[in-house]
């Protein structure tokens, strides 16, 4: 079972060191860590700040501002359901409700086995596919409950398994 990786401090340090002194490189650095570890461990805020001559509070501010950056470990598959207007009109809300039941998670939650994280977003920019969602970087559109079930099955979640 895929657990969040134990923090590999050496890997983390290497990423930070790569950008040492480059105050402008905060966001690329954070993305780098996010991609490597799946999240940005809280303990890395101070070392990042020190390396980039920033305040730790600034680093935290940036991490908490961007939806793509997270201080909490996330599941292997991050499901993002659109809550934008177009999707809402096309029944996005019931898709979300259905999804919550299917994966047994509320918004912002991650399953204990770190397989899935459920999130919502304002607009995925795929309104023509409404109602839409993303799993990691893949878009899925014109959703219906059966379609959601089959997508989840692709990602290894059998119907009914809580």
């Amino acid at each position, binding site marked *: 079972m895929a657990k969040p990786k134990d923090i590999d401090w050496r890997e983390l340090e290497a990423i930070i060191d790569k950008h040492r002194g480059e105050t402008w490189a905060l966001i690329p650095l954070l993305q780098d860590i996010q991609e490597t570890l799946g999240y940005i461990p809280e303990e890395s805020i101070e070392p990042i700040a020190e390396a980039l*001559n920033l305040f*730790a*509070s*600034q680093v*935290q501010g940036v991490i908490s501002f961007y939806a793509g950056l997270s201080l909490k470990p996330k599941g292997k598959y991050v499901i993002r359901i659109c809550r934008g207007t177009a999707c809402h009109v096309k029944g996005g809300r019931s898709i979300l409700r259905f999804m919550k039941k299917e994966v047994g998670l509320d918004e912002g939650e991650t399953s204990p086995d770190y397989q899935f994280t459920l999130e919502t977003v304002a607009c995925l920019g795929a309104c023509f596919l409404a109602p839409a969602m993303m799993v990691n970087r893949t878009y899925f559109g014109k959703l219906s409950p059966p379609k959601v079930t089959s997508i989840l099955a692709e990602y290894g979640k059998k119907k009914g398994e809580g």
Partner: protein
Amino acid sequence: MEEISLTINGKNISCAPGTSILNAALQNGIKIPTLCHHPNLEPVGACRLCLVEDEKSGRIMASCVTPASPNMVIHTDSPTIKEHRINIIRLMMANHPESCIVCSQGNRCELRQIAAELGVGQIGLYPMPHYTGLEAANPFIIRDLSKCILCGKCIRADHELVVVGAIDYTLRGFKSRPATVHEMPLEKSDCTFCGTCVSLCPTGALSLKNTRYVGSPQNESSTICGFCGVGCSLVMGSVDGQIVEVNPSHKQDTVNRSTLCVRGHFIHDFLSVPERLTSPLVRTDGDLSPAAWDEALELVAQRLIGIRRKNGPQSIAFLGSSKCSNEENYLFQKMARVILGTNNVDNGSYGSGRTITSRINERLDAGGRVKPLAELERAEMIFVIGANPAESLPVASYYLKRASRMNGIPLMVADPRKTALVPFSSLWLPLAPNSDYAMISGLAAILYKRGSYDKDFISQFTEGFDRYGEDLSSFKLEGVSRVTGLDGELMERAADLIEGKKIAFVIGHGILQQRHGILSMDALLNLALMTGSLGGEGKGLHFLTMENNQMGAWDMGTAPDFLPGRKSLHNDLIRKNWEQNWEVKLSPDPGLNTIRMIEEAEKGNLKALYVMGENPLRSLPQPERISNALKNLEFMVVQDILATETTLMADVVLPGAAFSEKGGSFTNMEGRIQSFEQAVAPPGEAKPDWEILGLLFAKMRYPKRYSSLDKIKAEISDLVPVYSALERNEEQTWIKESSNSRLFHLQGEGEPIHFSPVIKTEPERSDEDYPLRAILGSLRYHLGSGTRTAHSVRIKDFALKGEVEISLEDSAALKLKEGDQVRISSAHGSISREVMLNPDLRPGLIFIPVAFHNNDVMNLIELTQLGEANSPGWKECRVRIQKVEDLC
């Protein structure tokens, strides 16, 4: 550059290009409401309240972030604008809690004021208050972020002004708010409790935790902070004659701009504690009992005159105060010299480096003294030596951090400890204590070898460079590394950093209180001369003076070897001049300094001591020895605001007034003379020190009457050319430098400045019995020995323990862990402390903060005058540490 002209509200105005519409309006007396704008902060355009309309384009824009452009026709108050503004305020109010009505900000809340001005009462919107919980565990600041309107002033104050970075926005949208890292309470963050964010917050989201009073003060008056040498401008709020609240002054041309430090903002409780002296006390039958002013003063006059008659003028000494005003120090030393005929005058700043700063007097003839801190923000490079201003003179540290972080000015820090400035520096030189002179000469030697020195400057303004160069070329760099512990590569990198630049030196107590302070000062002046880093903007020497009027007390002649104007007593011409000024014969005998006063009292030669505003029993080394020496005196007068260890020993106690209770002037570390007015009346029968001295002059039948402050100011400005501006009584003015050095002469006349010989390095001998070196230094919550700051209720509540800081290596070797009780002993005494591990400390060093536990750390060092060089050497001593359980 050509001015831009535009119209605002029908008025034709012009402004410099780049001026925001808001500033253009303000400069022309047109008011625009704002919530997120502050003149000292970068504009962000967050609140949108400052909206204005351009008639031509119909555009509506935030005036604080929109530059004025030619021919704009702006309306700041049109019906459209008003409507927008009202809506913005309504939305803010909808987000605001109902507790608004009972908010302690009261009518000072800018949001409420603006709402009232715009006539927003009922908002007619669905309220969506934002509950965040109240944070009030620390004794300084209350945070109630439910009242936050996200103007970001606190964050910008924290980043741009004080450069601490304790807070920043977190999250976005509705949940967004200013937060500390990991959302810890302030006391667990980097927050220094400077309170600057609180002063700028336009709402009740941040407020001062008041220990005494809730609500708005009745009166506000401006004064100058009485703690450190920065001399911040304050506004003191009072209720019924008691100071209840302190804030930074609203004026723009102050040294602190809108900032303060924790001491200036929060630690003024000493002004109204029961320990304040409220009536004169006279010792009768062994006890001090209240007496009338006239009786007490008569006694002082008679005893002093009597002792002089019997034992001669050398048997009396005067210890003045670096916390008292210029006027008071002037009168004090005049009483000593003119009435009692002695030069035995000193002040509390002896221990914080007067003898060392006096080196610039000797070598530069007092040139280069006016050094505004603001120059640091325009320097080419800054070299901070032996200073931790983030703790000692916090507002000075803001300048350094801004210079580095905002202006990208390279900062080099030489300090045995990793100070709070190190993260802002380009290079840190972690040198061994007392080895600064070697490090500085080492840098000079490297530059000399590289041939990189300011040849024009040297030939124009100095003498003796050839000889100096010879010294440098034979100077052994290996020796430098041995003494300083800095390897050759680090020294080369340091030389790279200063090469070709003019240096602004910032010198702190690491040098000013060091046993090799004079050697270091000499080496430093040589380096400054060699690099042409003297005379002019953005270069030269900034001294971080610990006490707020350290400079002024010295300028006024409260020093054994200086007459007013910092003129040497040993110069016959100068002495003659003052003999004429005062119509008296002056003793040419050099007077006793603080240490020699104690020594002479020990020997029984000193019979009387007049102490004004000092507490030698707490501030000098070896308190027991001091106490025994003072017991030897026949007569001791102590004039102070608080009952102290020293007043308890006095024969007469005269109650003085604190700075907030009198007028006068202080001279800060920059050479800025700041006059201040009385904010509240002194308690009980206490009187301003100048008034007490004036009455004594009369009692001692001096013909001139000092019945008003103006008379004293007039005499000073008349006789002391450096202070000629004092009489004008301006809020602030600068000392008028006068120096015979060619460098400081506009016409280039005068003497050259001499290089001094390079002193060979010598490794310090170690001591097996005392293997560790203790550095004594300040924490920002206290000033000096802590006589005043220890009275603070907030500081008591904060429960600081003044732990000894030990490196991880030493604590492992000594099997010590955090919280252990230890005994720290030196050759002179011992103290107990709790252990705090400091991973940044280098092995072999420990740090002990001064002022805590009645400043008992003074037991560790010796009261002695170090060699002919006259350095106090109270910065560091050799100690050993034992765990208390092991001792029992």
